């Protein structure tokens, strides 16, 4: 795209050609992997999405029937789509705001910063299976530590995982608890904000709150955008936590899109239908990412760099 003059290989100098083959040789593992594990499967998946395929019989081409079935007949589709949008809309902003606030707190002059940073980061690297098991125990309605304490104080137990209207917020809470990685990225970005900007703001009479809104947020906005995109993509694909914690229940309230897709593929062996679900998910993620990028012109500050 960038260098139209170089599009035709015959125009290249010997030097160009040599370096091209050297460069290609080095990246060839990735290129082969990209073809074999990404590009070809991507098109195969598009093809399977137009078929009925149960792994045993050969795929049968059925045109757009899978997609039509999805929006008109699949009894779960509306539920899982709503659940997923709800989960994304709640967990991405909450995790990011939470991580950003904590990072700001840790970026002030404090004793034991690396201790606090470590404590808050650790939950994000502990295996999901372990955190799922311990949250099951913690949130248990009868003898979980949290409800146990509430009951000991004479309060009513909270049905975190057994009430359909609380189960998704509970998942969001656990996601925020495990958002330490985002916090560390924010903290690194905050430490890169030039001190001179704050000093200039103080000279201009800006108070702490004004400095936060007019210096910190604009200077960190590229990283906020980056984390929003990563968070968005991750939240749309969330699988392990609801799978282990609730198995999609109660009353399908945590049956997220990926769970539905997994069930169709590997429990019902409807490979064709699962592929069409995956393509819809892919397109939705791409659309949301593009939308986020297009709003970014209004609120992301890139300074003068690069």
């Amino acid at each position, binding site marked *: 795209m960038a260098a139209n003059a170089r599009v035709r290989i015959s125009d290249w100098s010997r030097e160009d050609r040599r370096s091209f083959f050297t460069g290609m040789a080095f990246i060839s593992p990735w290129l082969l992997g990209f073809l074999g594990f990404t590009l070809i*499967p991507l098109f195969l998946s598009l093809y399977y999405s137009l078929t009925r395929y149960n792994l045993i019989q050969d795929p049968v081409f059925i045109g757009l029937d899978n997609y039509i079935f999805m929006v008109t007949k699949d009894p779960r589709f509306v539920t899982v789509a709503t659940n997923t949008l709800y989960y994304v809309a709640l967990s991405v902003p909450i995790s990011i705001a939470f991580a950003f606030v904590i990072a700001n707190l840790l970026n002030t002059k404090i004793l034991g910063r690396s201790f606090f940073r470590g404590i808050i980061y650790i939950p994000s690297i502990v295996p999901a299976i372990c955190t799922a098991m311990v949250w099951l125990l913690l949130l248990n309605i009868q003898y979980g530590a949290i409800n146990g*304490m509430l009951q*000991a104080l004479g309060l009513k137990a909270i049905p975190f995982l057994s009430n359909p209207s609380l189960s998704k917020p509970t998942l969001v809470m656990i996601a925020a608890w495990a958002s330490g990685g985002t916090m560390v990225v924010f903290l690194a970005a905050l430490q890169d904000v030039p001190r001179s900007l704050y000093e200039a703001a103080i000279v201009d009479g800006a108070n702490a709150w004004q400095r936060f809104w007019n210096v910190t947020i604009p200077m960190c906005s590229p990283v906020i955008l980056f984390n929003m995109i990563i968070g968005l993509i991750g939240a749309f694909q969330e699988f392990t936590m609801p799978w282990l914690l609730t198995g999609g229940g109660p009353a399908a309230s945590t049956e997220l899109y990926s769970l539905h897709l997994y069930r169709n593929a590997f429990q019902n062996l409807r490979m064709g239908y699962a592929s069409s679900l995956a393509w819809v998910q892919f397109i939705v993620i791409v659309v949301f990412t593009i939308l986020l990028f297009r709003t970014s012109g209004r609120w992301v500050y890139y300074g003068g760099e690069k």
Partner: protein
Amino acid sequence: MSAATTPSGPVEYANVTQSKIIHILSEVLKYFILIVLAFSFFFPLYWMIISALKNDPQVYTIPPVLFPNPMFWSNFREAWLNTGFDFNMMAVNSIFRYCLPVTFGTVLMSTVVAYGFSRVKWPGRNILFYVCMGTMMMPWQVTMVPLFIIYKNLGWTNSYWPLVVPSFFGGAYFIFLLRQFMMTIPEELSDAARIDGANELGILFQIILPLMTPALTVVALFRWLGAWNDYLGPLIYLNRADLYPLALGVNMLRVAVSSTGTQANTYPYLMAVSTVIAMPILILFFFAQRTFIEGISLTGIKG
């Protein structure tokens, strides 16, 4: 926090004491919030470890037992050896059949690819690099079905091949990390070696690689962690208990104990096994905190 200073005798003095009080109050509030946060972030992990040391009465007591007495250290041995699941085998699977080969493949091949994307100038490099970065945005679900079918036809299901082989083609995220790091190494080093007649592969392994230790550690650490924590990959491809990695083993134990519902020490055993699996990560973090933090910071800033 720092109040505006007006240069006039007694008023200034009053302002200073007032701002000092506000300062102290805000400091106290800050540490209070931080301690509450640290406590609530750590509490679940504390609960995992402490519940592994309880017996059933201690688990089911209200109010909850914050510090059990006596502690049942034997839970660890019983959970690991006597619950009917071969956790030793699963540990071997996790370490030798999954984490180790995947980490080796990713580190080696991502380094080679990152070299091609940073230290060799060639036409078309940037376009392909953007394609490589773009693959990170693709949901795994969109290639899940065809890949499963391909691996099934290759006879690779119920083996670690589908989980390990792709890592030998590099990983986009790690290629990105290593490329960013390689860009910071001065070009003169390579040029000098080129004049001495070294080829590119020689330059990579003899000159660049020795300078890459911090970045390679980050990649190895994160990739190991990814495989150690992976639940979905093994769930899709492995259907035999003797092949399971630890993550699937814990869930197997949980399903077994919750379906019978009569076994003693259900939760302590589950927590004991979870603790054993989480412990290497916690210990690793304790010793390599800097590497973790620097590695994760590297991603965000350059992104």
